[in-house]
């Protein structure tokens, strides 16, 4: 599953992630595509605080980073 959070400023990308993490099954991943510079540290911090797994950062077709998160519970 992918979330398009382009143009959304901190802390909206992590709000988007929090609202949609329940939409994937445990063990599946969700990718937040976000261009806000705070998204990178904050999505990793959110995973730590909410005990999900921060998997990796990927480049999407337009160059916007995508942050891949695995639902753990």
């Amino acid at each position, binding site marked *: 599953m992918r979330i398009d959070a382009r143009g959304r400023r*901190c802390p*909206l990308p992590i709000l988007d992630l*929090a609202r949609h993490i329940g939409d994937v099954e445990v063990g599946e991943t969700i990718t937040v595509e976000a261009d806000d510079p*705070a998204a990178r540290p904050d999505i990793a911090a959110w995973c730590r605080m909410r005990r999900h797994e921060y998997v990796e950062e990927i480049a999407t077709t337009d160059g916007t980073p995508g942050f891949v998160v695995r639902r753990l519970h």
Partner: protein
Amino acid sequence: MTVHLDAAAGAPLHPVAREALLAALDDGWADPGRLYGVARRAAMLLQAATEAAADAIGARPDEVLFTANGTQALHAAVLGTLAGNRRATGFVHSAVEHSALLHAAEAHAADGGVSTSVGVDALGRVDAAEFAAATRENGAAAALQAANHEVGTTQPVAEVAAMINVPLIVDATQTLGHAAVPEGWAVLAGDARAWGGPDVGLLAVRAATRWRSPYPDDDRGPIPGIPNIPAAVAAAASLRAVIAEREDTARHHRALIDRVRAAAAQIPDVEVLGDPVDRLPHIATFSCLYVDGEALLGRLDRLGFAVSSGSSCTASTLEPSHVLVAMGALTSGNIRVSLHRDTSESDVEAFLAVLSGAIADVRDELGAAGL
């Protein structure tokens, strides 16, 4: 009436600084390089201020210079040390140095040098052995702050100094007047605004350290122009005063900061940052999940509290604080509370009385309740 809890950005003028400043404005206005009565008087005042500042930091008077401000002190510390040690080109610094120091590192890199940033742990502290190893590789000079200006964590300055054989530049901007300055510095930078002085910087270079002015030649000395003598006099006088009262102030601050940290930790989804013990006494920092830092600053301001934030939405660059990023900390809803000598227990109590409500209100505005 606003309660000012942002002393790290500049404390209100200390009464000793005000008194010294007013006296020196009348007495120390002349050019100290001239050879007549009022000029000699100005030169004497500058010499006395230099001696007092040197004494306060454990240096010799001929090792101390006043700069226009703390930013210039940091720039001159870095660029002057690199200019004086050109056999190597590497400059090593922690990832959590003040942006003024990082900008000097960028200038060094743009000029063909190599600047290496050493990362920190989750508390914001470098590993001394890792820092020293990076310095030994290709270091002409290294810079490590005495303590971090955003989260308060102290750095292993003396430990690093004992492990390296190049000059160690120490940013003591948030430490001077609040805590003991660590041993081992070759070059030290300070900012009088942080201890209740006027806008003037302090630069100390150990006599044995090779340092060359990074500025064009000026017959006034290594820092161009006539020093701001009234500001230097007030800075030195207030530095002595705050050091004399430091232990009492630090005990008072530490108790209040412990209370802020404990209260913030009780609020849901708030992370309290920095070392809980080995830290500056006057700074507390925390980040709040699902909180817009700018909205929280605005709400606290309307409630009568001035604090600062490292969240990206509060920065002119829209970048989150490099300190928080280096620590891997949450950057949203970030708040730094920093105390000055006049901060009272009731100021802090009043702040804590509104804090959790302010955070909840801002979360509600975002529709974040229950996430």
